[in-house]
């Protein structure tokens, strides 16, 4: 169990993993996530489920290399057995027919958005997706998202693909041109979810966001993932990961995400140094 069956690069430093996890595959609903631990000395990180196949007994995870653990994942070979994959955790997205749903995705957030868009479409909604990234290659899963939506609008910061600008620009225009959608689902970097929520609040459009805080257990036993929603402290791993975007205190959440910044940098540098030495040693061997 938890063996990497297939690994492919779907963008620069973006990896898609197919992992054997039959029990998780059977229970997975859109919006849920897993906690992954590579090995004995690793850290437990939350990864949202991008897909699952109950019959084949597999789950799909999409990982962007940002820190030590995700870089290490990017270097794992097919056939590697992860020490632990726990899930499916968190509450599933409430999928029902509401009318028009706009799915806004940025960066790695497009992966968890995929099953939600697919579910929303299957439930009979008109699904319009707005997907953004810094540059063309960073807008991942385009074919999959096109199949899961009725329409996809792309934005890139550098204008290399779709319209130049941010997802919020596209959303503003969409609302101006076609009126208010019934629901917005936004998943991406915290700042993106914050600006989308600020925008939709002005228009009074119900907005769901999926939060990706620091987590340890993912089962409600540490409180490390807590955020303020409305006036209440909520545990993202069990009460979420989805919340009403208009009620989330994003400023606090973004501060809390920076808790271990120096340690993350140290770990990353140490890992890269070790990788480098490793490569150098290999070079010597061949000589």
């Amino acid at each position, binding site marked *: 169990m938890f063996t990497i069956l297939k690994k492919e690069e779907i963008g620069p430093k973006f990896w898609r993993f197919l992992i054997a996890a039959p029990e998780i595959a059977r229970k997975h609903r859109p919006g849920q996530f897993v906690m992954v631990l590579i090995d004995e*000395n690793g*850290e437990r990180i939350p990864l949202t489920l991008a897909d699952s196949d109950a019959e084949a007994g597999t789950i799909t995870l999409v990982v962007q290399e940002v820190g030590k653990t995700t870089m290490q994942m990017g270097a794992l070979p097919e056939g590697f057995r992860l020490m632990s994959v726990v899930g499916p955790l968190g509450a599933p997205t409430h999928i029902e027919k509401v009318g028009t749903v706009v799915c806004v995705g940025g960066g790695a957030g497009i992966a968890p958005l995929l099953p939600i868009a697919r579910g929303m479409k299957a439930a009979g909604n008109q699904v319009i997706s707005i997907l953004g990234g810094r540059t063309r290659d960073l807008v991942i899963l385009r074919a999959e998202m096109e199949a899961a939506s009725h329409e996809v609008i792309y934005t890139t910061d550098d204008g290399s693909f779709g319209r130049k600008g941010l997802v919020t620009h596209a959303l503003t225009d969409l609302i101006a041109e076609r009126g208010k959608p019934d629901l917005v689902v936004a998943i991406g970097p915290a700042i993106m979810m914050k600006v989308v929520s600020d925008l939709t609040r002005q228009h009074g459009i119900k907005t769901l966001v999926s939060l990706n805080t620091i987590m340890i257990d993912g*089962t409600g036993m540490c409180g490390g993932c807590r955020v303020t929603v409305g006036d209440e402290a909520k545990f993202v791993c069990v009460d979420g990961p989805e919340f009403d975007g208009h009620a989330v205190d994003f400023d606090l959440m973004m501060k809390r995400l920076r808790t271990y910044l120096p340690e993350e940098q140290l770990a990353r540098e140490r890992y890269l140094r070790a990788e480098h030495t490793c490569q150098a040693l290999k070079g010597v061997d061949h000589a």
Partner: protein
Amino acid sequence: MPETFAGLPELPKKDRLKIPRHPMPEQAPAERVRNFSEVALGYTPETAIEEAQRCLQCKEQPCVAGCPVGIDIPAFIDLIRRGDFAGAQAKIKETNTLPAICGRVCPQEDQCEQVCVTGKKFKPVAIGRLERFVADWEMASGEVAMPECAPFSGHKVAIVGSGPAGLTCAAELARMGHKVTIFEALHKAGGVLVYGIPEFRLPKAIVDYEIANLERMGVEIRTSFVVGKTATVHELFHEMGYDAIFLGTGAGLPYFLGIPGENYIGVLSANEFLTRVNLMKAYKFPAADTPVRLGRRVAVIGSGNVAMDCLRCAKRLGAEEVICVYRRTRAESPARAEELERAEEEGIDFRWLSAPLEIFGNEEGFVTGMRIQRMELGEPDSSGRRRPVPIAGSEYEIPIDTVIVAVGQGPNPLVTRTTPGLELNRHGCIVVDKETQMSSIPGVFAGGDIVTGAATVILAMGAGKQAAAAIHQWLGKLERGEVSKPWLASPAVA
């Protein structure tokens, strides 16, 4: 063959009383605050035999009554005196499956040793230390007496949670010939024994050793499996084919204080702190990937065993000032006397009669300080302890970098919420029959902290054992067709 010891003769009672209680060899405080190795080093065989000589072999055996699982204490102590350590270990194992653990973490001063007759005039016999000694001796000898398991009964039992309650229940059921699977949410089995109690109090190698023994008895351990998420109780019965279920999911939900500033960076629950340090080995960062950052000044709120563990871990991680903030006085502190003393020796700054009012932070969201209110003791409350009341105008502020909240834990609702028909009390704990540990759902049993709220290792073990006996009976009834597996209405997705 393990070494054999000559033992010592039985002394006249008055001479036994003349022998002073043997102190536990320990790492010196100045040295131990710089490492995570075990503090108490254990008796030598010679000391153990001499300590065993102190026991009066009382007929009334108050110590046995004081032990929550009723270990035959005078009998095992007498075997130690004779130098028969293997016999002593076998005697303990008749009633207690995890002696190396209990010998280290049980509050003997409130149990067997509290009522020890020798202790009336002198210091009680060091029952816990002797229990630990024989268990360690067996482990070191490499010759573990495995209990006989009855032939396979044809029944499968699922145990949810691998803390002391689950481990004990599993061992008992395996002995009775049932096929047992333990489902554990974390990636490592042991419950609080691995994620909560630190290495310097309970080396993880001991827990691993006990768990390996359980596997040798044929118990299957499925880690990374969250019941209520990966599969529900209903599915365990009807899709995975289990005939009975024991819930030993503990009290893992951290409580916070509800005071302003609790979401600043640097305020963490005791569970988060201890999980990072113990389970994820943050004390080895960056060699282990999980970090924990404390800064120079750490305050721990609360004064139970959990708080002691946090204080002492913080000290070992290099915090310069480690402060314990507690509303009541030392006398009311629920921590074990031994742990409190050790914490004091290690230089923890105890602020008794102090209640936190508010936590301050800076622009970036990091904790900078805390406002504390001085208290005094008033009238006794419902728990019989004198209630702390604020002293007006006594507030003061201290600079602080990290606040660890250790004010208690409640039951985690992951299982209970997804098990329709399970009766809970107002605290969210599972209601069970006192005799059988059976819940409101026939065939579903529960025990340990999930029933009692945060309690002790030995009480959890006792409950696991009691449940095992009742599960065995239930399986008999199932076989005779007197009962059937429960069908739980609409097993929810959570």
